[in-house]
């Protein structure tokens, strides 16, 4: 299972800005993602995690360095790499079924077959009943399921997910985590999952890349060695979550200092609440 799928070599990306220094979104990223791996990019906003995803998707281009998929450099978007965005981006002028069929018809799949495959995937995300509904009739979680079905029906090798559950409520998100884990287990796709939610990353991923800012890039890598299907209460996960939080706090402090000036100090432990710091003081 450790066959390299996506390889990043010295990937660098900077954005030109009028009248000031170019912003370095990604600096010297070296990374190998294996086939069938579920990898999360975790970090505060502005750390280049979405930029990295967009480059793999072919929607953006790196300034220098190389990225290869199966040994081939990326040339623009392709239907072997499908993106699921934070907002579902369903086309409101099409029915749910037509939305899912959209990509298949571009691939020149015959209409009848496309319909069949789209229905199959809609059923897999438990929305078979809503095939003829219009997108506005669905809830946020349902829309996101359709978006996932629309991506997976294309049978891409790589699924790119850009904070796909960030706009959903906690309960819906937990349900979708389970569903995504099952779908991933069944299809064995390589998944790159961008998020700023530590718990989400810990529950879903094989590997977590913690990203840093200014310059953007990979700060550290965590392997998640917990059995699947995952439980949020698993001690390995809880432990890992707090380890990541410590590193993330350092990163946050850096950003806050830059935004508020150098006299700002994010007190250690203040994020974890006062009840903890109170412990033992009465003994």
């Amino acid at each position, binding site marked *: 299972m450790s066959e390299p799928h996506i390889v990043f070599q010295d990937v660098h990306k900077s954005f030109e800005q009028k009248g000031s220094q170019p912003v370095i979104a990604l600096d010297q990223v070296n990374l190998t993602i294996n086939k069938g791996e579920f990898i999360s990019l975790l970090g505060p906003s502005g750390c280049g995690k979405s930029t990295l995803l967009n480059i793999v998707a072919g929607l953006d281009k790196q300034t220098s360095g190389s990225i290869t998929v199966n040994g081939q450099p990326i040339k623009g978007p392709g239907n072997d790499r499908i993106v699921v965005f934070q907002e579902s981006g369903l086309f*409101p002028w099409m029915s749910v079924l037509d939305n899912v069929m959209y990509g298949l018809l571009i691939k020149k799949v015959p209409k009848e077959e496309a319909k069949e495959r789209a229905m199959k995937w809609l059923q897999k995300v438990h929305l078979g009943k809503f095939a003829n509904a219009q997108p506005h009739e669905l809830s946020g979680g349902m829309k996101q399921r359709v978006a996932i079905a629309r991506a997976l029906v294309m049978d891409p090798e790589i699924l790119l997910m850009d904070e796909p559950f960030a706009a959903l409520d906690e309960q819906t998100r937990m349900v979708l985590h389970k569903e995504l884990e099952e779908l991933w287990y069944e299809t064995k796709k390589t998944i790159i999952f961008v998020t700023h939610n530590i718990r989400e990353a810990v529950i879903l991923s094989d590997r977590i890349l913690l990203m840093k800012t200014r310059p953007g890039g990979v700060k550290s890598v965590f392997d998640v060695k917990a059995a699947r299907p995952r439980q949020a209460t698993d001690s390995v996960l809880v432990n890992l979550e707090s380890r990541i939080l410590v590193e993330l706090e350092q990163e946050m402090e850096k950003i806050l200092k830059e935004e508020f000036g150098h006299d700002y100090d994010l007190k250690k432990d203040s994020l974890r609440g006062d009840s903890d710091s109170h412990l033992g003081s009465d003994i």
Partner: protein
Amino acid sequence: MAILIAIWEAISKFEIFPAFMWPPLIIPNDPGGVTILKTFISGFTGGQLLEATYVSISRLLVGFSIAVVLGLFLGFLIYKSKLIDDTLGFFVSTLQSVPNIVWFPLALLWFGLGVESVIFIIILGATLSLTVTSSAAFKSVSPLHIRVARTMGSSGFHLFRTVILPATIPQLIAGLRVAWALAWRAVLAGELLGGSGGLGTLLDMGRSLQAMDLVFAIMIIIGVVGTIIDNFVFVKIERSVLRKWGIQTVK
């Protein structure tokens, strides 16, 4: 409505204005005299009004169709290229502020007295307005939809046909409605001045014959045609699109 008609008839009966300036609507002032209703009916049975209406509407359709194609095309160019936006886009919005009938003397010089001149100012008026609205509509297409389509492998004309055009339909319909009203005005103004047949020319004839009954009958037709198309074509399409998209619940 009934009150308005009654007031009209009263003004006519008391001859506040001479009868040729203010003809009765339904009840003739002297037995067998002219009324607007009578002129209206005889105009239709005699074919004179019917034919003029047909001529005007068919000109409108020809001019408007050409304007839609041209307007969408120019709007797309402005959306696509920053350079064209800065040059042509600015030019178009300047021209748009010129009432299209101002072009008529020029049209007469270029195309002569006839159908061509009328169609020219219809196209001019509607195209400019549509260029402005369609380019604004294309620019407002959600980048998310475009990215979704591109990641699925759509590009070029396919992207335009399946995403950009359908995404702008609600705005385009609103734009078409405005352009249509401009075009309908242009038809009548052109015919009124250009004398090439149609309702506008008939209106001018009514004026020179001092037949206000004819003038009023034609004004009624103009209003009715405008209302029918606006209410039964555009409003209907607009409602069904908005309902399908869930933008607005049915009133």
